[in-house]
């Protein structure tokens, strides 16, 4: 066991993958000399040089588009978008090109690239630097989507992403980079596409991912003090989505809530809740509760920012009401 941050786990995954696979190149703004806006790729340029740690101009559509072409011609690029909010600029290259190339071209070729980016609130970064846009990705067939919540998953999911034949969007949470955990990265990990049950209880299922897992776990601890035992599912990847694990737990327990940081309407929580309702209807004792971001842009005020996304208190209170209905 070693003590390691989420940032270092990501860095280690990139480092090891690049050492093993000569075709991996990192393409993005400030990834080389600067070491990454959040320090994830720090010093990798010393090992791999500017040829593989490719600093680009400020050209987000270009970064993603170049990675698409490189992936089609034999490289395995890790493209980096400094903030997921810049997806607005790159969305054509991601959603119209990367996601559809295999299908449009009748299966001739895939686009084995990983788009690393980070999102979420927690730094008063304002409306254009704090969003949770995973719903945009999940809404696009052809894209895999990983959202690690733990240090070990930051490592394992990124390593795994770098072996896949299809494009992966890998969304880190900006408030998790400094999170430190004791990990043994050599211990076997759950397979790609499998959700983790982070806590087991018999009264309530909480389905979540990324930073909201931390809030959900804390809320579950508080619920336990009040005699409510929650199962907490960490999805780890949203595409593939491990619905079997959700189903098993919901059918066993009958009460469920989904917790996401992205905005409520037409978002990931909406998809999960409707899916649970459709698939597990006979087992549900209560409506599935969606706990998600408010339908507002993220304000820079720390007070407004924190209030606009779910937190421990809200998750705990909703959980308690669901159980004591």
């Amino acid at each position, binding site marked *: 066991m070693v003590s390691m941050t989420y940032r270092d786990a990501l860095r280690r995954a990139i480092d090891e993958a690049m050492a093993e696979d000569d075709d991996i190149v990192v393409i993005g703004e400030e990834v080389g000399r600067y070491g990454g806006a959040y320090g994830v790729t720090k010093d990798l340029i010393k090992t791999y040089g500017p040829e593989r740690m490719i600093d680009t101009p400020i050209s987000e559509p270009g970064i993603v588009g170049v990675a698409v072409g490189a992936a089609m*011609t034999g490289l395995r690029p890790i493209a980096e978008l400094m903030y997921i909010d810049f997806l607005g600029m790159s969305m*054509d290259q991601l959603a119209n090109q990367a996601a559809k190339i295999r299908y449009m*071209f009748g299966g001739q070729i895939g686009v084995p690239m990983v788009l690393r980016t980070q999102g979420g609130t927690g730094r008063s970064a304002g409306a254009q630097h704090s969003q949770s846009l995973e719903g945009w990705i999940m809404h696009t067939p052809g894209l895999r989507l990983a959202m690690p919540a733990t240090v070990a998953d930051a490592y394992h999911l990124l390593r795994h992403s770098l072996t896949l034949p299809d494009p992966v969007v890998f969304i880190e949470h900006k408030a998790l980079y400094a999170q430190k955990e004791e990990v043994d990265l050599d211990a076997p990990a759950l397979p790609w596409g499998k959700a983790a049950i982070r806590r087991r209880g018999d009264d309530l299922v909480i389905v979540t991912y990324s930073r909201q897992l931390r809030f959900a776990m804390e809320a579950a601890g508080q619920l336990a003090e009040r005699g409510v035992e929650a199962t907490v599912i960490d999805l780890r990847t949203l595409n593939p989505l491990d619905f079997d694990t959700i189903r098993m737990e919901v059918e066993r327990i009958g009460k469920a809530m989904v917790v996401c940081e992205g905005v409520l309407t037409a978002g990931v929580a909406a998809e999960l809740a409707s899916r649970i309702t459709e698939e597990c209807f006979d087992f549900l004792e209560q409506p599935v509760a969606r706990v998600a971001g408010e339908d507002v842009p993220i304000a820079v005020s720390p007070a407004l920012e924190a209030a606009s996304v779910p937190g421990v208190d809200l998750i705990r209170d909703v959980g308690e009401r669901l159980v004591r209905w």
Partner: protein
Amino acid sequence: MSLKHTADSGATTPMGGSGQAPKDHNSALPDLYRTMRRIRSFEERVGELFVRGESAGSMLHLSIGEEAAAAGICAVMKLQDTFTTHHRGHGIFLARGAEPRRMMAEIAGKMDGYCHGKGGSMHIADMQLGHLGANAIVGGGIPAVVGAGLSAKRKKRDSVSVAFFGDGAMQQGILYESMNMAALWDLPVVFVCINNQYGMGTRIDQATRATNLHERALAFGLNGHSVDGLDVEEVRNRARSIVDEARGGRPGFLAVSCYRFYGHARMDKSPYRSEEEEIEGRKKDPVKFARDRLISEKLAGENALGTLDGEIGKEMDDAIDFAVSAQAPSLGSMFRDVYAEGEPEPEPLKIRLDRVLARN
């Protein structure tokens, strides 16, 4: 005289695949004429396919009038080179060695097409021929050649990647990001703008004040030129130095000026331009120009050319027949190739609904 394709070296295909390799094009005028004639005839048959109601939709963009750009530039590309095209890319793909039958079948949305009927005219691609894809997003295919150039450089493949696009894409930001990176990194990349004077109904001078298009490339440090697209030999000569220099790590840009003979797509009757203008524009016919020169320079006789034109016509008629009689893709193929082979396919809606509604 022989107007047949001659050379076909045993070089590997762009992706190192084992399929049919593109022909190495002989770039002498008789061959350039043959390529252009095949494009013209093919495009005419695409129009026919549409009129007969056998095409997949009407979003079919003919490159009639633009043949010299496709033939002249493709003639100086090599087997291992890659390219992307815009939505008006039939001619370019043909000039790179595509089979008319499989192209026509794709345009008809059939299983035997290059993309099994999933791509169509605007998304046709073939990795064996280095075609990284046509695109229905104006400018959408441009950055991929920068990525391909990066791959070529890193893997020391002696391969140039060429982006073909229209004048409309000159006003898209992605082009400037791409040219900037290609120049910054000294990549074997060429940007080719086929300036047919129009983006749908918008004439180039209604879209920009800066109509000397190559000047923009110069501003980014590229080897930028413009050439008139009437004389295919002139295009070929210009393209040769640009592509050769790109192979050596100096990215280039070439604007080829021509006239879009017909409407934007099949439904467009061009009400935004006058008949006089069209008559004048169609005088700039690269196929006729090359044919006249073959005769005047005694490179070919009227009879031989007539025979050739007839043969090509038959080849393209055969492509139509092939496309019309080809099978539609099976409905089950809808769920294939969203992800890599072996990955679970998306669950069909009907199966899911049956499962959900059968709970009692």
